């Protein structure tokens, strides 16, 4: 069953004198519970596409539909590429995690208690609940951002480069959490990644390319669920990896 349908999406930016088309003819059908990885060069328009999917920006043309949910009632879980600046520095961990419920005017004791419970459920027991963002490591900040994205039980999760600027252990932990959440809740997840080693979580990988950018290719990742890191050593994964690499090398050689 299709959960998210993106059809004919276009985005233009105008500085008053010139109009620049950044995205053109973006089409994507995402099945319920599917994980999609999006790849593409820096500055190609991945974050713009994510901002449109998350409802932060409006498309110039085209539509995004979530099946069975009214547009106004869609709940999006969203983490930004720069997880440090997306956390409110004047809020502690629990207040940051519980922002989605604060916006719904849930009383403070209740939302803090629920945030604490969520962090425990996610296995983030070592995350200091009353610490402020400037007292946390990069990996801890990303955990807070991820927990916040999950806090209001979103219909879909959009993660903009969730593994960027993290050390190897933090990347492993975050990937394990994403894999567990997906396994438990069958949540639809779309994420951006530059690292080929990080696409093992995805069911399909979309390649965004061109000016204006559009999806020029898609690759299936046929691995059993739940996904584990050691699957990156499998023959099937090596095949997908190699196909993507070959395609990308051809594309970038043309530039």
């Amino acid at each position, binding site marked *: 069953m299709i959960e998210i349908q993106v059809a004919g999406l276009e985005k233009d930016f105008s500085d008053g004198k010139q109009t620049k088309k950044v995205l053109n003819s973006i089409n994507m059908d995402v099945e319920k519970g599917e994980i999609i990885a999006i790849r593409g060069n820096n500055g190609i328009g991945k974050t713009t596409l994510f901002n449109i999917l998350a409802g*932060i920006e409006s498309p110039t043309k085209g539509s995004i539909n979530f099946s069975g949910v009214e547009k106004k009632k869609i709940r999006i879980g*969203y983490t930004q590429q720069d997880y440090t600046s997306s956390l409110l520095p004047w809020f502690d961990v629990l207040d940051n995690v519980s922002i989605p419920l604060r916006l719904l005017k849930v009383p403070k004791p209740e939302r803090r208690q629920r945030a604490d419970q969520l962090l425990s459920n996610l296995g983030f027991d070592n995350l200091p609940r009353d610490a402020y963002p400037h007292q946390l490591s990069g990996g801890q900040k990303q955990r807070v951002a991820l927990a916040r994205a999950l806090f209001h039980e979103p219909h879909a999760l959009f993660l903009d480069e969730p593994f960027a600027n993290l050390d190897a252990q933090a990347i492993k932990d975050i990937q394990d959490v994403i894999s567990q959440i997906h396994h438990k809740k069958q949540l639809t997840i779309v994420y951006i990644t530059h690292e080929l080693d990080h696409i093992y979580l995805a069911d399909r990988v979309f390649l965004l390319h061109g000016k204006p950018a559009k999806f020029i290719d898609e690759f299936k990742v046929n691995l059993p669920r739940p996904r584990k890191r050691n699957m990156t050593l499998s023959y099937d994964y090596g095949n997908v990896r190699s196909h993507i690499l070959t395609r990308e090398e051809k594309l970038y050689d043309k530039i």
Partner: protein
Amino acid sequence: MTKYSAIFGNFKWVVSIGIILGIWWLSTSLNWINPLFLPSLDDLGNAIRELLTNKTIYLDAFATAYRALIGLVLSAIVAIPLGLVLGRMQGVYEYIEFPVDFFRSIPSSALFFLFILVFGVGDLSKIAVVFYGCSLIILVATIYGAKVNKEKQDRINMLTAFRATPFQVFHLAVVRDALPHITAGLRISVSLSLVLGIVTEMFLGATNGLGRQIYDFYLRYEVPKMYAVIIILGLLGFAFNKLFFILERKLSFWQPAEK
């Protein structure tokens, strides 16, 4: 930590005051400086004691603080909301950037007589001078604090993705983010409000206030009392400054302290 810093680390200000008083005492007791310019510490102590036992000085301090604070509070009431709105509306700000910079470049003292013409010689003209000087500083600090930069845009995007209303975005990201800049602007303005309050009392026909007292003692050559009022004024300014510094730290505890 050395033994010395362990003992004196928290009392550096006592040491510095001790040094200043020591130099003062030497200068006056060895007659290095004419007592007309610098009274002896004994004379100064007597003058302070005499002033503090007379209720006039308290009424004067209150009059000065009242004018400075009313001017400051009015500046804050007008400049903070205006700055928050202008900071978010870059297009509108571009229209008023020039007049703001132009008026900021006119020293408040140059407008003394214009304000007397408009508001008369009462408290209103003095408060207007304080308001003029402080409001532009607070306005510019607030605009700077409310301006969208990359970090703030990330926070606004995050809240928008969680379907925050425009008011929630404004309250949770814009206002909170601007608070350190606003309090920094207020802290600078507190000192300026006292300076302007004092100067207006000297030159705009005041009948009371610490500025008036300094001017009167100067005219009567009562130098120790003039020094005494200056020191009381310094303590008042120092207290205001510290108060706002504490407030600034409380509101921006996540940022490194700037003394």
